């Protein structure tokens, strides 16, 4: 008998679309309800609506209390960080705990909010699990030497957020496992833990360590995973954007991508692109910048159906996006391929497999010629 817990996902939005699309790979959970806040206008729509993709066969609701009757566990997702914890989130945690539901929190919650959630759960005797808070043993010891990895490594990175990075990571995972290989993964979002792989280590995000220490620790972290899990392949999803967009849109400056690229040398890399009408010169320029700045050779592009909304972004001083339909970007994909660039639309299931196969194929060729 299947002992999977029924999972209610709140608030369901674009950040969790990849999770739902690949829900068959969740470890120990079966998605029973998707609930979005009424203000998002998603109620009654198919789950694929949120990221402009095909139907996923599960309908979004907006009544949280009603949905509680059809779940065992409630996942409070990343988007909660943009909502009022006291007014909106805490009452829902309370309602869920009152009904005996277990709680899962993503790393979006600060420590104060986590304490409140833990206290509520403890009182009601339900579990409260926070993702993205792996307690690592000290990884810093000895010198700053960067240790070589013996296992092929694939990076999945994006120019900006919203480039379907996690979708690409899950597509790779699926195909690698189908091909019979053992995969270890570090995901770009804490939802990775729902699929049984590692989320991006929290020591890379905080201020507890210097940037040099973070680079060394990340190297040690991946080396540890290699030693313990003995995979055939390691896939690392790099959160955030990998470069500044302009002086007014620094996009995190690509610091995390830079640090990861110093810690680990990849054997293959997938670059997520926000949608635009790229010409040959643009893509060549991007390949050159990534190579020079990060030392990474890009093997293929994953063209997202999300466009950067320049006007709003410049006005607000924050990244702002507009969602396009997944089918709309097919034309641009074809144009880029005709110019010789391997571009994929990972929301197209055929493309997702093809992209994964091309990466696996490349690594298999490398394995045939191994320096000793």
């Amino acid at each position: 008998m299947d002992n999977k817990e029924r999972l209610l996902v709140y608030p369901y939005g674009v950040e969790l679309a990849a999770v739902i699309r690949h829900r068959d790979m969740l470890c120990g959970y079966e998605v029973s309800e998707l609930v979005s806040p009424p203000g998002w206008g998603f109620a009654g729509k198919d789950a694929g609506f949120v990221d402009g993709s095909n139907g996923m066969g599960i309908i979004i609701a907006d009544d949280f209390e009603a949905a509680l009757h059809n779940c065992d566990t409630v996942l409070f997702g990343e988007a909660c960080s943009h909502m009022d914890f006291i007014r909106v989130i805490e009452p829902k945690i309370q309602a869920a705990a009152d009904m005996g539901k277990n709680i899962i929190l993503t790393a979006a919650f600060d420590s104060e909010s986590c304490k409140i959630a833990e206290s509520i759960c403890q009182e009601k005797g339900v579990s409260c699990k926070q993702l993205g808070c792996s307690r690592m043993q000290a990884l810093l010891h000895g010198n700053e030497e960067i240790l070589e990895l013996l296992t092929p490594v694939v990076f999945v990175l994006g120019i900006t957020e919203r480039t379907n990075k996690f979708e690409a990571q899950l597509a790779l995972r699926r195909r690698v496992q189908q091909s019979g290989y053992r995969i270890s993964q570090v995901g770009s979002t804490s939802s990775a833990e729902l699929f049984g792989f590692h989320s991006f280590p929290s020591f890379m995000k905080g201020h507890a360590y210097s940037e040099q220490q973070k680079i060394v620790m990340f190297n040690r972290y991946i080396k540890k995973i290699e030693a313990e899990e003995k995979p055939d392949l390691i896939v690392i999803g790099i959160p955030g954007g990998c470069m500044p967009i302009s002086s007014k849109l620094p996009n995190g400056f690509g610091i995390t991508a830079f640090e990861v690229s110093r810690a680990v040398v990849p054997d293959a890399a997938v670059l997520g692109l926000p949608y635009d009408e790229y010409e040959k010169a643009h893509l060549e320029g991007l390949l050159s910048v990534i190579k020079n700045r990060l030392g990474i050779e890009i093997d293929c592009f994953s063209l997202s159906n999300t466009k950067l909304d320049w006007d709003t972004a410049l006005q607000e001083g924050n990244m702002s996006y507009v969602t396009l339909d997944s089918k709309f970007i097919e034309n641009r994909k074809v144009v880029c391929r005709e110019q010789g660039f391997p571009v994929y639309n990972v929301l197209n299931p055929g493309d997702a497999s093809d992209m994964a196969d091309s990466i696996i194929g490349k690594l298999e060729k490398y394995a045939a010629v191994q320096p000793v």
Partner: protein
Amino acid sequence: MQYNTPHIHLFKTPGGYYIYDVNRNTIVRTEKSTYEKLKSNSSDLSAVEGDEDIRELLDRGYLSSNKVEEIEHHATSMLGFYLENKVSALTLQLTQQCNLRCEYCVYSGSYHNRGHANNRMSRETALKAIDFLFTHSKDAKRLNIGFYGGEPLLEFKLIKECMEYAMKKSEGKLLTFGITTNGTLLNDEIADFFEKHDVSVLISLDGPKEIHDKNRKQNISGCGSFDTIMENLGKLRERHPAYMKKVSFSVVVDPTSNYTCVDKFFTSYELVKDSKKVSSLISSRYAKNETAAQDSFIKERNYEVFKVYLHKLGRLDVKHTSVLAIDEYNRLKNLHDTSLIPAKSLSRKEHHGGPCIPGVSRFFVNAKGDFYPCERVSETSDMMKIGSVDTGFDLESVDRILNIGRLSKESCRNCWAFRLCYVCVSMADDLTQLSGEKKISNCRNVRRSTEQQFKNYCTLREFGHAF
């Protein structure tokens, strides 16, 4: 890159010589000799290509003759998605009636627009429009609902219903409200309600009593409205002193009035001096007759602008500067921050500056439920309608309004002010059709005012000002 006829604009200030390079979207300071060589060879650079200074500019990627080939706004191919997912601001015309009869009002009969009328927005239409906002804002984190008229406070009950309805639906979004009002009906009940829900209030106030009351009169009595507004403001401040920071003023400056008096009022009058002001001249768009500015007005205003510049150079205390003229400086700052962003080249396909994406930046719903790009277009012009609460957006109309540059393609692609243009559809509307001729009639003013901005900007830079 082609170089023979550089796509540039030359101008000078008392302190320097400048090239505005359209492709690079950059102003470059140059020597007088270079300026004069460029001026003498503006249609063909080949005679001076060998000149050392010209060569330096060419080698650094300036002086290209590249121009746009096709006029199309970058959002055009994705317009459907913007309209489906990126709508973020809604303005509701709750009523076409008003308790004032302001002389310069666009609904006064002096403009090619509708007049005051008894049309009120029904509750059903208002709520449909609010639903439309929520279902078309997937990619917008912040939503704003603005109330407009006529005088929207004539429909306070409807305002409350709209706000309560929207707030119930808004979980997950950051929702804010605003209202544009003449301020005469702002009683205690309304003030308390607005304060409770943090509504931004924009009150129309034109200056001291004698200037304000000249144009802004009560409908029935014909008396001025100044005293009533001040009384209401006084009560509001007493009841909710902290909330006054959400109150700002829209100042329509009458060019036949005394500029200094208006300015002094907003600098010193107790109830208004600490609030934000947005000033504009009496609108000439759709006007049946234009209001000419008096010489004394122009002189006073220019002097106040000059004093603001002196302050920005650290040579005059702010207490001697105009709170209205600061807008001129802010325009220059905007030029620096958002308009003069360096580029490599004009694209093959691009649209001149000016148009916003109708419906996305904001959309205006009139009392009947028809959609317009904003409240500044004429409701009597069928060309301006972009949909309705019942039919949604009309993609074809939005496309036509967005790509207004297609009416004047040759003129636009050759114009040095291409990137900095501010002409939008309201300036091309001759009420029967969208007119290329009417659109082009604005071009001289655009180039003149843009060049003047460039000169002011460069002069401040010459004196060491950092924007």
